[in-house]
């Protein structure tokens, strides 16, 4: 991967993705070999929006590479609430760290941050935009279970606001994957994502009903439909109920179907699915560690001219 930052999944080529996932596999096979690789480097965790899970996952991945982490703490207590711009904040933190991980409520925040600093920036979620490290771990999970070619993937739930969905859908266009999108009409894919998919020649097949496609799926990726998206609570309960799955729903699915979810789930996947062979979401969450280790390892290596076999790194 010759990237200086990881901002969107659309920036990643098939080669980029495979290089990180190969490395993630190597990390998972022999974590000890990576234990002190980046001793003496510091990673800043800049979360302008709470996300304990993602923050812990990056923190753990960094520490397993020998990286120290610093954390700007809760947003309320930082200078953000005093009105400092993101551009200024990241320019200051750049002096404290060798790379930044950024979670921010506004779309495009990571792009802006990357324009303001010369250390690698990893987008850990920007509003309803992108969450590309989640995508890499999703792809890793799919690849380890099914490979990434000649595959049919269904993505279900909130496709409009779900950033994990946007990143995953665009990354999957690098592979020979049929994608089906299952959602209520009000939560269909946004225009910009649809545009990207059409640009790559991918077909966008949209459905309102999972039953239309479940028999054909190798992977079913479920996302949460959030209450805030609906003006009316009754409407929310009615719609969300139609996109909930349980063990009975999966009777119609092929035996090898993997059910995935970026977690946390609320009730869109019933607990009785956990006991079936379809459940892959905890494995998926655990894959965050080797994948984020591989990602940080790659970006720090790219950012270090000495490690780059004499090729000038444009920083």
């Amino acid at each position: 991967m010759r990237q200086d930052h990881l901002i969107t999944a659309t920036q990643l080529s098939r080669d980029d993705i495979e290089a990180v996932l190969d490395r993630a596999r190597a990390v998972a096979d022999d974590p000890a070999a990576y234990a002190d690789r980046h001793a003496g480097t510091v990673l800043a965790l800049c979360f302008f929006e709470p996300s304990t899970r993602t923050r812990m996952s990056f923190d753990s991945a960094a520490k397993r590479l020998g990286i120290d982490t610093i954390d700007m703490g809760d947003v309320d207590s930082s200078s953000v609430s005093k009105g400092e711009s993101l551009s200024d904040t990241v320019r200051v933190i750049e002096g404290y760290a060798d790379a930044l991980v950024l979670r921010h409520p506004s779309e495009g925040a990571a792009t802006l941050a990357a324009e303001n600093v010369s250390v690698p920036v990893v987008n850990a979620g920007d509003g309803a935009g992108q969450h590309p490290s989640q995508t890499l771990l999703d792809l890793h999970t799919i690849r380890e279970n099914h490979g990434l070619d000649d595959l049919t993937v269904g993505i279900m739930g909130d496709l409009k606001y779900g950033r994990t969905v946007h990143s995953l859908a665009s990354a999957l266009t690098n592979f020979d994957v049929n994608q089906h999108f299952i959602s209520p009409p009000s939560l269909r894919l946004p225009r910009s994502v649809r545009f990207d998919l059409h640009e790559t020649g991918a077909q966008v097949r949209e459905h309102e009903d999972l039953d239309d496609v479940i028999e054909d799926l190798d992977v079913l990726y479920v996302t949460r439909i959030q209450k805030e998206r609906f003006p009316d609570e009754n409407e929310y309960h009615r719609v969300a109920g139609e996109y909930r799955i349980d063990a009975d729903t999966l009777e119609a699915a092929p035996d090898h179907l993997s059910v995935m979810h970026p977690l946390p789930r609320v009730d869109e996947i019933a607990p009785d699915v956990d006991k079936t062979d379809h459940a892959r979401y905890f494995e998926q969450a655990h894959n965050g560690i080797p994948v984020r280790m591989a990602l940080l390892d790659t970006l720090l290596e790219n950012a270090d001219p000495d490690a780059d076999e004499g090729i000038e790194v444009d920083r």
Partner: protein
Amino acid sequence: MSDHELRVSKIRNGTVIDHVEGGQALNVLAILGIDGSEGLGVSVGMNVPSDRLGRKDIVKVEDRELSQSEVDVLSLIAPEASINIIREFEVVEKSRVTRPDSVTGVLSCPNRNCITNTEEPVETRFEVVADGVRCDYCSTILRADIADHIDV
């Protein structure tokens, strides 16, 4: 200049924007940030018969020449437009607009949750795509509604 343009009086110094798609003249003025309060002499011809466009609009602005970023945005709503710079009643420069690869600082992003719509010290930047423009920050695509998002 065609005979039809004589309906609108000649200007001494300024810019004539010709071959604007019929109905877009007021949007052209919006791009230029002209609403009359500047005291500039402005004449507008709307739905003038044209061989090339069927119907076209013409905008004449006295004592004003256009910046490159204004021409860039103009090209998005009036791709066939020609721009004539007038000095002492003579056309001293005539050019067709060309579609730029990107437009910086003129349009505002329609996505309210975009980082460019916060207090950040950042100019908007849009990539020009097939039939519209796309925000470099949040990827939102702006099509027919470009004129509504001109930031002047």
